[in-house]
């Protein structure tokens, strides 16, 4: 793996997330009806940060959930090594709520498709909105994000790597490319 570019660092990520949190507040007048649901693994961390930012800005304590979409994927027979299921934790009723679905990178749209299927199994939300840190294009399904941290034009060979302090030790967004291409 070769690092081609470092497109975001800690300060940039922090200010971007702050802007996204404010956009969520702006778009949702009934803030207490909003619940944040992070997609494992990095969507959970970004979701938690958005949750804290909204709490700091508005003093609102929102419900938070974790979604593991492994069981909703459409590629079980082709993925290998075997999938690791870490479990979904949604302890509140999603019916009638405004759900902010959070992920790190929006790419083909298949993860979001799976996440939408999963959420509606828990109930019937009033709205589901999508928040991503990076939109890198190359959609394979008609899915768009409502809140985008950064739009990043990439080639399909490149890999966008979002690193977060909580699990990777540092906050940064890298574009890497597999060697040998």
């Amino acid at each position, binding site marked *: 793996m070769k690092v081609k570019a470092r497109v975001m660092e800690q300060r940039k990520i922090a200010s971007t997330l702050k802007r996204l949190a404010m956009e969520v507040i702006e778009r949702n007048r009934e803030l207490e009806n909003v619940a944040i649901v992070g997609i494992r693994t990095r969507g959970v961390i970004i979701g938690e940060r958005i949750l804290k930012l909204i709490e700091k800005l508005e003093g609102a304590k929102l419900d938070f959930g974790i979604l*593991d979409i*492994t*069981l*909703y*994927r459409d590629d*079980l*027979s*082709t*993925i*290998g*090594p*075997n*999938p*690791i*299921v*870490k*479990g*979904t*934790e949604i302890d509140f009723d999603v019916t009638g709520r405004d759900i902010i679905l959070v992920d790190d990178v929006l790419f083909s749209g298949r993860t979001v498709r799976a996440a939408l*299927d*999963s959420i509606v*199994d*828990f*109930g019937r939300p009033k709205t589901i909105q999508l928040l991503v840190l990076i939109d890198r294009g190359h959609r394979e399904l008609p899915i768009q994000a409502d809140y985008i941290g950064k739009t990043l034009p990439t080639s399909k060979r490149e890999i966008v790597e979002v690193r977060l302090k909580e699990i990777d030790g540092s906050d940064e967004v890298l574009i890497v490319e597999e060697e040998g291409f």
Partner: protein
Amino acid sequence: MFKRKHLLGIEGLTRDEIDHILDTAQSMVEVSKRSVKKVPALRGKTVVNLFFEPSTRTRISFELAAKRLSADLINFSGSSSSLVKGESFRDTVLNLEAMHPDIFVVRHSQAGSAYYLTTFSKSSVVNAGDGAHEHPTQALLDALTIRQHKGELDNLKITIVGDILHSRVARSNIFLLSQYKTKIVLSGPPPLIPPEFSDMGVEIEYDLDKAVEGSDVVMMLRIQRERQTGSYFPSLREYRKFYQLTKKRLARADKDAIVMHPGPINRGIELMKDIADSDKSVILNQVSNGIAVRMAVLYLISGGSHEFNN
């Protein structure tokens, strides 16, 4: 990582593989608590329950596990089928296989029948109990239940009581627990405890009072009256006297001990009547965990590329 195509037994599985199945099963627990108890993971897969021996709990548990993963399921039971008309096990399976199932879940009174199935079938095979050999999903659900109550499978004292000789549940449990740093003690009438187990580092203590002393887990087995052709103990009355788990005996175990039983319970024989309903009993948790474990197994053998063929 569990990357096998079949689950034929616990023997031969590594600790990593067992942990992977248990971790996956723990994540499956939540699915059964939703209002919509279904995920699409195995949509379009066909599971055949091949039961040549009577079973209610295991068959229903596999059925619900398959259905909660959105697989289609066919129940085949030995007593009401072509077998009665004289068709062989192999021919029966080959005919079912011509209908393109993906997974066979098989229970049979002959040890090794699940393995035998893999020698001529292309489908994945899950052993749901073969004679007195193994019952791997039962051991896995027992392990999951222990882990939920004790936090780990290491550093425990686990006492298994009763008919070890005829018990595939005991065998699978011993194989599984011996992968962990935990003390296993077997107790029961001497003719029903194969001494060979002591070679695996398992302790044998015929005196139940001593065997349960300080135990974290007391696992009671059913007296399998249908498998006993000889006489292994003089009478049920005598069995009760020496090997029934009474409140007094249970008081010798650790104060947070749990009591397990694979079911069906012979109330008043292995267990004193009210023990199954006491707060130490986790027997019904075992039943709920059975679905999660079977979901995990069906899911894992369906996924990805298989490194081993069995």
